[in-house]
């Protein structure tokens, strides 16, 4: 097996030894996060401290009339509060919204002494959001425009298994549970579905099920579904067997229940969306942790059919991850770099292209990305919704902060996840830690 260390690797090891022998040694990654925006982000050398550098904001929730901040010319309102971990939003053509409440229920197996520590960090980051209230269901939110007061959602589908992605194709609503895609008959305007769902296909889930959110979309004619299946580990530390058909986007034929892997090497792909009017699939991807505060940049990318994006063997093209053995130089050679860096550890989980008309023209066709926020970084990154302008179907310029104020003075009111654009052109944001759904509207059209 190829476990010998090459010359460059040895040099890095020696650097690591030197680094550890000096008690207070920097990470060597002192770069501005803005250098990691766009198509050619700075990729520093991996750095390591004795403990991973981490900071998780304490969750305090939203109190009184507290709201996130939006740019001048926009306003933001809570349209549903007191939810139980709302993770995703789907806008129906009649203006109704589907709110997907979702939690990961089963703990991961205890393989290493590190696991309980990581579980504690994850729990702290979510602040027990939603408490013991029922979750794992799809709610229907009909906006009554009742003078800015939050609406009352009704339960559309209950007793799901950590659902995340939904997509409506004709009169069929597909819901991606963590372990299967389900099909429900549903006509727009209905406030309930009849009967239990029918299974389309099983998806990889337990017993580990590390990255559990299954993002879902369909192509224009609804003949194919696309589902994101995140990895079972950070960098293959649970072995290759746990990663079968994971860290991939699947193409599913809903008629036959057959699937093929559409693209692979995407550690945790979410926000699957076709660019409006095109056949190009886009996704936001969470890259790996514990290589330093500025490594590896998370990204937004168009997904090329059949492409390999590196995980676990390499990142951002052909930068080899020193932790993964045996190495696969043959696969690394074929790895392609993604389109657009968002900077490191921002944890993008939601993506929506702006298809409305009520926002100013610069927003048209651009991408809104929900960044759930970092843990593996001394300075928090993400915890906001950013906007990336598009020209000719490609991202241009730096991301612009669009909805901020989720974290103040190191305390988290909420964390943005799923994003959608509703029929009126308003932007809808799911906040799973703040247990709120937010609606952003333009005050004036310019």
């Amino acid at each position: 097996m190829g476990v010998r260390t090459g010359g460059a690797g040895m040099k890095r090891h020696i650097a690591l030894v030197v680094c550890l022998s000096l008690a207070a040694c920097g990470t060597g990654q002192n770069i501005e996060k803005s250098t990691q925006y766009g198509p050619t982000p700075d990729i520093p050398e991996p750095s390591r401290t004795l403990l991973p550098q981490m900071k998780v904001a304490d969750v305090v929730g939203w109190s009184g009339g507290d709201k996130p901040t939006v740019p001048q010319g926009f306003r933001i309102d809570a349209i549903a509060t007191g939810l139980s971990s709302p993770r995703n939003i789907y806008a129906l053509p009649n203006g109704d919204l589907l709110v997907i409440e979702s939690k990961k229920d089963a703990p991961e197996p205890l393989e290493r002494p590190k696991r309980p520590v990581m579980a504690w960090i994850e729990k702290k980051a979510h602040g027990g959001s939603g408490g013991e209230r029922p979750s794992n269901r799809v709610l229907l939110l009909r906006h009554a425009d009742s003078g800015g007061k939050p609406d009352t959602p009704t339960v559309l589908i209950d007793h799901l298994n950590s659902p995340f992605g939904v997509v409506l194709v004709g009169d069929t609503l597909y819901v991606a549970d963590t372990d299967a895609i389900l099909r429900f008959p549903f006509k727009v305007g209905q406030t309930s579905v009849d009967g239990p769902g029918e299974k389309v296909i099983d998806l990889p889930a337990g017993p580990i099920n590390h990255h559990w959110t299954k993002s879902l979309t369909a192509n224009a004619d609804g003949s194919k579904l696309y589902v994101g299946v995140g990895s079972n580990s950070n960098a293959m530390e649970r072995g290759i067997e746990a990663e079968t058909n994971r860290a991939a986007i699947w193409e599913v034929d809903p008629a036959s229940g057959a699937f093929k892997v559409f693209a692979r090497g995407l550690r945790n792909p979410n926000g699957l969306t076709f660019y409006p009017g095109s056949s190009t699939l886009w996704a936001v991807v969470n890259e790996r942790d514990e290589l330093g505060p500025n490594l590896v940049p998370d990204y937004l990318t168009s997904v090329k059919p059949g492409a390999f994006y590196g995980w676990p063997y390499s990142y951002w093209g052909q930068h080899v991850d020193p932790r993964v053995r045996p190495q696969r130089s043959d696969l690394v050679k074929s790895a392609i770099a993604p389109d657009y860096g968002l900077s490191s550890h921002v944890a993008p989980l939601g993506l929506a292209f702006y298809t409305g008309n009520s926002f100013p023209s610069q927003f048209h066709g651009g991408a809104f990305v929900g960044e759930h926020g970092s843990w593996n970084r001394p300075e928090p990154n993400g915890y906001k919704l950013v906007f990336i302008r598009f020209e000719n179907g490609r991202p241009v310029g730096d991301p612009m902060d669009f909805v901020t104020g989720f974290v103040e003075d190191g305390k988290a009111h909420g964390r943005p996840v799923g994003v959608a654009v509703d029929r009126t052109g308003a932007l809808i944001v799911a906040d799973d830690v703040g247990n709120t759904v937010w609606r952003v509207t333009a005050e004036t059209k310019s």
Partner: protein
Amino acid sequence: MVTLRDIRDGHAPLSSDNAFVVETMPPASSRVASVAAPIYLLLFPIPVVLFVAAVVTDVAYSASAFLMWLHFSQWLIAAGLAFGALAAIALLVVVFASGANRVGTYGWSHLVLFYAALIIEVFNAFIHTADGWTAVVPIGVLLSIVGAICALAAVGTLFFMPIAWVSARGAPA
């Protein structure tokens, strides 16, 4: 009738008449040492064995890249530290109870080597948290070896001075 309490509290002289009382009932601090010493001797081998085993599993991982060996190492080091911490406390009690002047050169060497092994293995436990190869190669396996050598050297001191300094009755030569 002279009681032990009288002697301890200074109400009765320590003379040849009542020396047998002293002989059979050592002072309180020595009694603590006589309880702590066997506890220490019970606990002390556990981390030594576990740290040596971690060297074996680290070498196995370095040679195979098979993650099971890495998991073994992580648990062995963690368990070694848990028992090592208890042993370290027992050793402190023994030293304080029997008095520093009874510890002797080999006794101090024993303590320093054992504590050094524990400190090295604390660092090693953190190094072993990395997700894969860099948890072991090269620093992890290096620290495992150094930690195990320190622990075994601590055992070695007992050949020169069979832990006499921790027993209640025996005095160092």
